[in-house]
């Protein structure tokens, strides 16, 4: 097991209910630095709710969230991002009328605390702009850097989701179905990008595509009805009869 000190993200006894429906039950998670964890589970297992709880878009009814040992349960979403806890969205949540270069530069300016400077021209922040361009280049978006986001191909928009997250310099990155809706011929670049994410970032991703899960994840957490059914190596998860029954067997690879 990983030592306590290496854990960058930890949840303790996380609970959340909507009315009488318990969507998160006593959830304990521990994500070590550099993790490549996948979160799987059938529809309605509470995966997205869990992400929303971790990022602060929802408040848990009880339990704690610790980022690098610090309690962030009551911290706002933006402040968590500035401390290195960033997510991407399952459905593109981009800035349609901004260009990718502008959007990524904006994220960098927010990170550097210079987004509020109204007296200096944007182009005076040369470092932020060239850093933004470099992120886009690494993700293969250099050609469309100055095109409005709404004119980008869907796969490129998915990549921009990741670019925006990387611009915040995350320590923990939560990817909510990064490949959702991407046609097969556009997905190769996306997989390469996910594979090439900087090693020190702890990554937790939700994914339905089992090919992606088994090729990228070093550990898999199986969530069923808001609780962890099991957490183990991919091979062990694949062979577990309970997982086969609740998840793999019914919905996917038969």
């Amino acid at each position, binding site marked *: 097991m990983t030592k306590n000190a290496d854990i960058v993200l930890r949840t303790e006894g996380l609970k959340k209910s909507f009315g009488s429906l318990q969507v998160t039950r006593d959830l304990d998670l521990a994500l070590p630095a550099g993790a490549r964890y996948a979160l799987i589970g059938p529809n309605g297992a509470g995966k997205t709710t869990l992400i929303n709880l971790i990022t602060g878009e929802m408040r848990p009814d009880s339990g704690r969230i610790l980022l690098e040992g610090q309690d962030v349960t009551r911290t706002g979403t933006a402040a968590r991002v500035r401390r290195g806890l960033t997510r991407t969205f399952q459905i593109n949540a981009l800035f349609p009328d901004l260009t990718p*270069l502008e959007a990524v530069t904006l994220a960098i300016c927010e990170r550097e605390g210079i987004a509020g400077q109204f007296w200096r021209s944007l182009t005076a922040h040369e470092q932020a702009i060239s850093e933004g361009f*470099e992120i886009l280049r690494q993700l293969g978006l250099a050609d469309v850097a100055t095109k409005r986001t709404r004119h980008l191909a869907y796969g490129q928009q998915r990549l921009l989701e990741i670019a925006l997250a990387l611009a915040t310099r995350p320590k923990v990155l939560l990817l909510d179905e990064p490949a959702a809706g991407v046609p097969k011929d556009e997905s190769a670049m996306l997989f390469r990008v996910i594979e090439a994410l900087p090693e020190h970032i702890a990554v937790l991703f939700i994914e339905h595509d089992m090919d992606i899960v088994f090729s990228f994840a070093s550990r898999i957490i199986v969530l069923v009805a808001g609780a962890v059914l099991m957490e183990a190596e991919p091979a062990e998860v694949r062979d577990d009869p309970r997982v086969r029954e609740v998840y793999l067997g019914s919905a996917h690879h038969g």
Partner: protein
Amino acid sequence: MNREATLTATQTTQAPGASLAWLRSRSRWSVFEIAFWLATLLTFYFFPSYLMLASQIAITALFAISVDLVLGYAGIITLGHAMFFGLGAYAAGLLSAKAGWGEPLTGLLFASALAGLVGFVASFLIVRVQHLALIMVTLGLGLLTYELANALSWLTGGTDGLRGIDTWPILGLFDFDLWGYTAYSYTLATLFLGFLISRRIVNSSFGLALRGVRENVRRMPAIGSAYRGHLRKIYTISAAIAGLSGALLAQTTNTVALEVLSFQRSADVVVMLILGGTGRLYGAILGAIIFLLVRDQLSGINPQYWYFGIGLLLMVVVLFMPRGILGGLARLAGRDQ
């Protein structure tokens, strides 16, 4: 797998310098802009009998710019911005009529600072609400201010208007004349200054953040933005500029009518922005020019029904150029990809 090796295949010829150059080109002064500002000076020579109207247009354009900053850039829908225009007008007017201080430049500063202060306080309420509630809150604040000024008639003159304003010569040199030479020079110079400030704001990283809020406010926290602070800041700046334009009206006409705070003024300025095009600064100026020129011409023909013409114009623009006249022109010129 080696990261560099994986990704070199996707490298392109576009250099980082090119992207910086592209951003610079977006904020550079264009020939059209320089031509436009030079053209504003032609009024002195070609339309000397319209200088008072021209100065009304300059004042209204500055007001429209202040609203464009919140509505066009930050996406805050407001139907109560006359509140800050009126505050500025009364502040400058009262400074002269009640306190006996008619020096115009300090009057402008005083009015602008007061409107900005009230805007700052109001901004804490504004950033808490969205959509319909936002329209109602701004509308409500505007109506409250109007009724407050009406109730304080001992101070404001109520429906009779505030009289007894005496504006001293600008810099002690240029007295306000009957034809409006000084008035137009003064309002045009202030408009230009307000425009320069606004232009710098929209071209800054802060301006980019405002567009981010407008484009997707829900995403802003996810990139680490405490965007409410941005909104409070722009609302305060906008209120200060609106106050500046109100003060100009008080000083150039030496009277303040209750109408400066009216809902009609708040609504008209939104109509101007829709006509000219939101989120472009020049759309605000163009909208003000068209609105006031049409009003001037139509009310000459029929003083009662001039708004019919505005309504018709608005319908045509909204149907055929949903992004305003400037937006439509930019589209035609292919500068809007």
